């Protein structure tokens, strides 16, 4: 009976044999993450597939706008040795393009269409990555980028209901206002895990 500690060790040996791992993160007993160079991704994925990691669970991207890079993430899963692997690779943000993994996992067709639609990443090798999948008649920059402002878009396109101000403030003391400001200040100070 295989316990999963030896699964992860087996995996570590396998991956380090194939290519150079830039960063390794052991998230839990059943999930690990490797960050590799973008040219090694295809070799790594096909070797992993031949060793049993046959299911592509997810393909998406993270927008690191300060470092001016996109991070494309592939998540693959094995049903016999249950470890979920995240393969991360950084690509350039100005002209983002990543070779398509359609020959290895044919189901990546729709994931790449979605990543193109929401981030703008091109996938040469996938014949129809430009077709629209989810957003119909979209007229702005790809929406999941961090420099897209969803509330400005919403205010521009959909009007808000205006409520008539038919009430009046009757009491002169503004204890409530003071208490509310105090609450807001405390909530902002606690953000990010800072203790008071």
């Amino acid at each position, binding site marked *: 009976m295989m316990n999963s500690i030896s699964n992860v060790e087996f995996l570590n040996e396998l991956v380090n044999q194939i290519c150079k791992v830039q960063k390794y993160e052991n998230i839990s007993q059943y999930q690990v993450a490797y960050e590799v160079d973008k040219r090694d991704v295809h070799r790594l994925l096909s070797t992993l597939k031949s060793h049993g990691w046959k299911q592509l669970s997810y393909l998406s991207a993270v927008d690191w706008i300060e470092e001016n890079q996109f991070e494309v993430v592939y998540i693959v899963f094995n049903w016999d040795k249950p470890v979920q692997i995240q393969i991360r690779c950084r690509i350039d943000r100005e002209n983002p393009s990543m070779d398509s993994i359609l020959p290895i996992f044919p189901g990546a067709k729709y994931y790449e269409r979605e990543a193109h639609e929401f981030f703008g990443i091109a996938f040469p090798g996938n014949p129809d990555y430009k077709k629209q999948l989810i957003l119909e*008649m979209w007229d702005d920059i790809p929406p999941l980028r961090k420099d897209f402002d*969803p509330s400005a878009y919403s205010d521009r396109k*959909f009007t808000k209901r205006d409520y008539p101000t038919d009430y009046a403030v009757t009491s002169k003391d503004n204890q409530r206002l003071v208490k509310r400001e105090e609450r807001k200040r405390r909530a902002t100070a606690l953000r990010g895990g800072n203790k008071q």
Partner: protein
Amino acid sequence: MKSTKFTPYTKLSKTETDRKWWEIGDFFRRNSLWLLMYCTGCCAIELPPAMTSAYDMERLGMGPMATPRQADILLVSGYLSLKTLRRLVYTYEQMSEPKYVVALGSCPINGGIYHDSFAVINQLNQYIPVDVYVAGCMPNTEAVMNGFVDLIGLIKSKKANGWKEYHKNNDWFKENQITALGKVVIDDEFHQ
């Protein structure tokens, strides 16, 4: 008191006869409303208790129907993304008149918790005419039943005229739909 044998019989004018026929039709229409089970968003989870033995909807005469052509009420339950709005406009125009729209939840009123999203519309009233709003996020099932009873009251007092407004102000509705959707009828690979 005048004897009825000699008072002349006054014939009702055409508008009055039409109104009386319409009132009889209103009695039948408000006592047997058929719902289209179009569960758009999260508020649809309030419909199973309303339909089954908990808060029985059938004693009001309402029942679920499978297609828009057979239904009277279009129940918009929850938020509407742009994709769903396009299909909702198709569905609304397929229903046979007179038809009513009931909007559940606060998302059709002013956007709800998705008011600053790029894909969810804020006000349903601009695209199709709405008769009854039921506020809440999500409303209690008793509030939903109350909304239906309010709709029956509106039909009785002849105020549920959303479908007539859609015909009268069709240009305004169409203009709003085109602003939001671009084009109402499109072809894509899923439509062929």
